[in-house]
């Protein structure tokens, strides 16, 4: 199968994981690690299965992804910028960097400045559509966009 087609399929997979993340996320307990873990597990497991090379590192990467997600949510809710997109952008940046670093444990190719910067920037940009608590929020789509973008980039960089 040609690489572009493969990437499109992977992007759709990660987007599906993003939809599931939103559906599983419990707003009442998202500030805790244990509260976030079930929601982010689909993305984390998918990323570990597709990008992490030694199998024994996969559980660690999954746990770290859950932690990163928790941290990013904390960042998003604690920032007090009048422009909500900025909050989300910073949280996405943190999330992108965290996800890149966590995955890099199991995939040394990602452990380069350029790759990390790319993933971080993608995380930040892909988080702009988020509007936590907004009346017209399309959260399933927001998470789908973020996880689809970051996950696909992770896969592309780790496969190269």
């Amino acid at each position, binding site marked *: 199968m040609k690489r572009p087609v493969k990437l499109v399929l992977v992007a759709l997979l990660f987007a599906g994981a993003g939809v*599931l993340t939103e559906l599983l996320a*419990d707003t009442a307990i998202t500030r805790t690690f*244990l509260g976030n873990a*079930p929601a982010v597990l689909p993305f984390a497991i998918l990323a570990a299965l597709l990008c992490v090379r030694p199998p024994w590192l996969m559980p660690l990467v999954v746990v770290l992804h859950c932690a990163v997600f928790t941290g990013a949510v904390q960042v998003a809710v604690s920032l007090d910028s009048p422009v909500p997109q900025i909050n989300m952008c910073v949280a996405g940046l943190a999330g992108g960097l965290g996800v890149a670093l966590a995955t890099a444990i199991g995939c040394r190719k990602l452990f380069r400045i350029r790759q990390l910067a790319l993933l971080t920037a993608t995380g930040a940009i892909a988080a702009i559509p988020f509007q936590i608590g907004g009346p017209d929020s399309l959260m399933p789509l927001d998470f789908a966009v973020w996880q689809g973008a970051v996950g696909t980039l992770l896969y592309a960089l780790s496969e190269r």
Partner: protein
Amino acid sequence: MEYILGVLVIALLIAWVVLRDRVGRLEDRLSLSEGRLRELEALQKTSPVVVEEAIEKPVPAPIPESVFVAREQPKPIGPLPPPLPAYVAPVAPVAPVTPPGPSLPDRLRQKLGNEEWEALIGGSILNKIGAVVLVIGIALFLAYSFAYMRPAGRAAICIAGSLALLAAGVQVERRAKYRVFARGLIGAGWAGLYATSYAIYALPAARIIESPFAGSVVMLLVAAGMILHSLRYRTQAVTGVAYAAAFAALAATPSTPFAVVSLIPLAASVLYLANAFEWNAMALFGLVATYATCIARGDSNAPLASTQTLFLAYWVLFETFDLLRVRRRSLSGGIEWIFPLNAAAFLGLSYMAWAHHAPERLWLASAYAAALYLASAIVRAVVRPPSSFENGERLSARMRAGSYEGPLLFAAVLAALAVMGRVTGVWKSVGLALEAEIIYLAGVRFRATFLRRLGGGAFVVSLASVLWRNLPAEETSVLGRPVWNWTPPVLFHAFLFYVNRGLFRAHSAFTYGAAGLLMLVLGAECPAWLIGTAWLLLATVLFEIGSRTRLREFGIQAYLLGGSGAMMTALAHASGSPHRLWIPLAASLALVYGNVLRVRLAKGSESAALSTGKALATALLAVLLLWRTVPWDYVALSWCALAVVLFELALWKLPAELRAVSWCVAALGGAAVVITHADGFAKYPADAVSISWFGAALCAWAFTARLLSRREQTFLRDVAALVGVLFALPALWMVTPDVGVAVCWAALAIVWLELGSLLRVNSFRWLGSGILLPMICWELAVNLYDPHYRLIVASAGIGTCYYFWRRGGGLRIRAVFSLLGTLLLTALLYHEVSGGLLTVACAVEGVALLGAGFALRERVLRLQGLVLLLACILKLFLYDLRNLETIYRILSFVALGLILLAVSWVYTRFREHLRRLL
């Protein structure tokens, strides 16, 4: 009362354990004896000499005694009992002849360890019964309230008595002879102590401890003493009884928090001993007792976190033990039940706790439990990697051995429950599908067949849930278009199936499943008249994918879908879809025939069955399309024309299988022409009728022409020509006035005759000749009765006959043609000449025929002339003589006489010439 019953149960339990040990030993002895007997019998059968040697010498390798002792007492600390007679008894000499079997009393005695039954009852059974009765007495004493002694006094007496029994038992047990008796005393002593420890805080009559906690501690201390003492014997059963007492103590204590927390160290100690001594049955007992005690305590209204932490601790304990046994690869004593029982109890208790405290977050509990079992699966995969199992080992055997599959299955189910609990609507199915995808992906990543199968099974469950929850279906709106609720998730499943096949080279079953799902969606979402076309479109796409990727499965799917699509299109449009909706039908036809051309132009090869199928589908759809588009009166004709087109395509091999199909279509068209215009079959019909008949004839002749040009299939060519004539004759009759019918038919006959001559095709000549028959019949039956035109028409007919006679081939056929001409001429004379001159006219005709026969040297003509003259003579005498007027009678006789004389003269005069002619 409950107290006494409890004590009684404990006493009976102790007695049962002791007796069970006894019976176990007896069974071992019996099996040993039987084994040795079988060995000796075998020796005796193989060689008498060997048997004799065996009798003289000791058995070379007897089963060591220690083996049997170790089963009962693995590491005996105290003095061992004297060796039992059955173990050390010398081998009895084997008699040459097999002795009769032992009698019933002997066998019973042997079973009881060669002890007399009286000694057994007196020394062992009575001992146990005595111990039980004594313990009951102690209990009754404690429960009885009387004025002379306070509770402390009664408790002190009981404790003293129990300790005395215990001390006596320990002391006496050192002597081997009194060992059985001593154990009875020990059991009674501990039972008495245990009953007393319970009574001093639980029974009002003996209560000296008010605090439940303190009372529980005392009971546990006694139980701990029992356990420690039991370890001296290292017997699983005895230690198990002691632990049963400990668990019973925790079950009886009124302090619930203390009881449930104390279960942790107690269970840990059980598992420690079970792990150290491989007492697997005791571990299982510990698990059951722990959870049973916990359940018996009921709900303590503790916070959810505390309750769940406690359950988690239990689970971790038993799971750890199970992991240790997996690493040890132990598989005895029902140890494999630890995992499922632990899971069932943990999950059940957790469910009850969450359902009581936070029912809205049950999904979270499921998610956590799934994570736990996922972790367990990972650890198991490390402890007992899949490579440690033999290839082809069954899944059930692997799961019993503690492989990772069991926990993973639990994790998958729990994760699915979490998704279903949390997510609503159609997203449930999406979530389940994603979970299945992740499982499958893990199977691909780790090359684990089980995971891949589990993923596949999860997909099935997910799909089943889609349909189960959404039937009867409701509609929802997607991009402004109403669709069934289940359509998006089903499409998502299909997408995942293709992802698996494309990205991870999954089994081809995935693409079959995806194609089936797409087919289902198209079938549900499209109107009936469009379903077939949609399926054909999908089949075309799959066919293209298959030809590009060279994956055979896509081709098969395309053919299956295409066949279904063509059939569906045919059914939908044959069952009365609106006339205007011909576009889907045309599109279907284009898709089917486009596929035919695609294969042909790509020079691909297909099986004959497939090509024939496509040809059939093409023809079927084309027939339906014409039926739906062409005016009804011309449908049959259009089918005939279609047959010609199909035949032409077949001749170009686009594809060749269309040839047979075209014949079928032609037959259909011909039959349709006859049937559809049966009502309009009349003289001067509507244009459609005559055009259809003429058209059918032309189509048939088109077949003839093409076959003629290729010089092949002569039989079919001739059949087509005949069919064309059969259509042309009625068509000519319809449009031509009666007077011209015979002329037209005659022209047609001449045309075929000339064609046959020109192309040297005899069958065409015969065909032309065949046309003469209906022509003659028509003239005889119709034209000769028309006084205005009969002369002209009959002349044309006679001329045609003589034309055929001149152009005809063989002698016989020429004779037939001349005969027909003569017949027609005679009939004409019959109609034209009045009755009186008829005989004369016929005689003249006969003379003319004779003359022509002489001139043309045609004997047939001459014979016809003679026959005609003979007929005239007969008529003259049989008819004219009676019926004609006199003048005509005279004229007839005279004329005929002269003619006959003249003929006779000619024959006489030219006898020599005639002889040569003959």
